[in-house]
């Protein structure tokens, strides 16, 4: 019965998390949908935990180790990249101190390298 109760507990968590997710995400305005997507993207990088938990058990077997190292690398890319890029985007949404028309219009012409300013 222990297994069954673990399953029901986890399913309860799953269902409740789904409802909370709908409520919280519904409040995000259209303006922030790209950061929302890259932010939630970073959060599903949490599968990294799965890789970390499983590699502890991968006593022997080179192939197991190889796929888990790849999984951990993937999860890390997902988390680190996702959070960094979201942070970069959201910094741009911060209200800037206004009334600073001192920037020369010449320099802004090639906005190609317009990175986090």
């Amino acid at each position, binding site marked *: 019965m222990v297994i069954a109760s673990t399953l029901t507990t986890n399913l309860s968590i799953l269902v409740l998390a789904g409802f909370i997710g709908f409520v919280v995400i519904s409040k995000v305005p259209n303006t922030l949908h790209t950061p929302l997507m890259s932010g939630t993207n970073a959060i599903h990088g949490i599968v990294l935990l799965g890789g970390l938990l499983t590699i502890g058990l991968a006593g022997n077997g080179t192939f197991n180790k190889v796929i888990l190292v790849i999984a951990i*690398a993937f999860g890390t890319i997902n988390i*680190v990249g996702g959070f960094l890029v979201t942070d970069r985007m959201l910094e741009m949404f911060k209200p800037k101190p206004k009334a600073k028309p001192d920037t020369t219009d010449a320099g802004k012409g090639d906005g190609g390298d317009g990175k986090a300013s």
Partner: protein
Amino acid sequence: MTAVPLATSFVQSQSFLDVLYIVAFGLFIQGLRGLAGPTTAVRGTRIAAVGMAIAVIATLLNPNEGNWGLIALGIALGAAVGVPAARQVKMTAMPQMVALFNGVGGGAVFLISWSEFRLTHGYSHTATYIAIFSLFAAIVGSVSFWGSNIAFGKLQEIIPGRPITLGGAQQVVNLVLLVLAVAAGAYIASGEHSQGIFIGMLVCAALLGNAVVLPIGGADMPVVISMLNAFTGLSAAATGIALNNPALIVAGMIVGASGSILTNLMATAMNRSIPAIVAGGFGGGGAVEGASGAGEHAGTVRSTTAADAAIQLAYASHVMIVPGYGMAVAQAQHAVRELTKALEARGVEVNFAIHPVAGRMPGHMNVLLAEADVPYDQLEEMEEANQEFARTDVSLVIGANDVTNPAAKNTPSSPIYGMPILEVSESHSVIVIKRSMNPGFAGIENELYYEPETTMLFGDAKAAVTEITAELANI
């Protein structure tokens, strides 16, 4: 040690670690609440990042943890790829970046399931439900990994953005692949231990991921990216159940919810059903109809010059800028900001009308305009903007096409009929900056261009906008 089934060893994990996991997912939820407004959003994502750090630390504290060298290797590899990519990516390339990050998440999910299968010798001595969730994660993760990679390839233009389709056989092929993958999964769950079957299941799921995304045209990308995001989230939640890890379940499910909401919003904004988009091939049939419809237009196209456009804009009192993917492609957002400043200096009121599916992912235009320092209170969503057009003197359409097409309202035979649009033609005059008369991604002729109040300014968006700004200085 290797024969210990995963489930039982994790049931024994310490309560302390569980508390840390609960703190972690609490922080995720609190962090996402911050995304309700631009001022709190930065702090919100940082709170979520702290939650993630706590979840990772809790996992590393686990008494069964080992293979530290390999863990360090994996994390170092991931950071070496992820950090520079995130630092250097241009805002216009954000959809690709998100697709790629999403793909690696899906990749991690199916690799973890595969290693679970191997470590438990085909889920022997494992509860059936754990096998089922692990197999579900493997299939969905694999679909998401391959689908996201194809989406990345299309957005990066490594693969043609046009739909690549098998025609009428497409749905049949997709269905067969899905059935094969599920059947292989069911066979394993019922007690089969052969790794060949598992690999076969992964291959079917991989082919399915390719087969689903290849036929989807560029304009449908916002929907697809949202959907793949939801898939990866759900597969992570399934992994969480298989590993009995509450943080994974909550985080995965929230992402699943977020992706589902966005998918639905995007599909509604295009007046298309999600199954129809997944079935794919929008550009194919539509292009033919659009081409034959071209002859019906009685009106002629009037072209204008940057000097005339500048005069029109300078003497307007209210200007609405309608940006689209063309602005992103031309990297014109900074030039547009300069034009806005020049107009505001003359006392012209300038706003931006943002269609929900403008660009290649939800909210893409907002990010580009934020990059160019356009204050977000100047950005108007579709409903808001549509009330404004009647009192707008000049609408300046920069690289937007299908989202302004009046055919969506007026022509029941049009493939985009019923899609909510920005009612640009309500304004007193319209200037469209466009490279040529080529139809947009959907391959549909835009009636707006033939209307009497519309003039066309042909050229690259960035060059044209810069030219208008220069001309403004001479007035």
